[in-house]
């Protein structure tokens, strides 16, 4: 499948990936992540249920302390 991840085109061998699988492949191991798929927020407890498929627009935002 081809998706847009953080505004960049990316290709994966899988037809579908759960959010947790995607985060693992991309090595997004940070604690505080905001994930949006096609503009919709995916809550942390849904990371194993919600999947990403061909054509999806995915945002993964790493929140860091400081301000």
């Amino acid at each position, binding site marked *: 499948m081809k998706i847009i991840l*953080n*505004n960049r085109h990316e290709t994966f061998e899988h037809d579908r990936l759960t959010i947790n699988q995607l985060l693992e492949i991309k090595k997004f191991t940070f*604690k*505080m992540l*905001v994930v*949006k798929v096609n*503009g919709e*927020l995916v*809550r942390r407890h849904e990371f194993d249920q919600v999947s990403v498929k061909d054509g999806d627009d995915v*945002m993964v*935002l*790493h*929140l*860091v*302390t*400081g*301000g």
Partner: protein
Amino acid sequence: MSFARAMEIGNYLKKFTVGIAGCGGLGSNCAVALARAGVGKLVIADYDIVTVHNLNRQYYFHDQIGRLKVHALQENIGRINPETVVKAFDLKLCTSDVVDLFSRCDVIVEAFDKAEMKYMIIETVLDKMPGKPLIVGDGMAGWGNTAQIGCRKSDNLIVCGDEHSEVNEDCPVLAPRVGIVAHMQANEVLDILLRDFVPGSE
């Protein structure tokens, strides 16, 4: 001529309200920039008091140590632009406060310190106030690396910062980088508020 245009923009901005969640390095500097531009009303919230350690980057003065940040900031803004109305809330924001305080704001600025709080307000705004512009500051500790600081948008969520530099004992937050991000946030606020501004029509 440019002075006249700045006046016109200031006049136009009077009708808007901006919510600022947190009055530390991001919030205090962002609020001052928006007051200088002429934004009519600021809704600010923080529970903390000014300490000597805040003065390396936050918009407070030495003689304000010990005072509530929201009251000190209200006073400082009053000295810069008395026409900006500042509604100050001394509280540690939770989900219901975010909705109560900011649902009538035109734009919300996230200016918290802790990543958990940043997550809370992002989740709350996307969930309870869909369509409301939220401008987040994310990643600005340390110094240098100016070009790594950027801004990206996903619908109504706007993220300013390098999305990477976390504060720790060896990497404090310092005035220049947090000031850059705070002013980027203020700049994004103006970009939204001035969307329908037509020069010469005021």
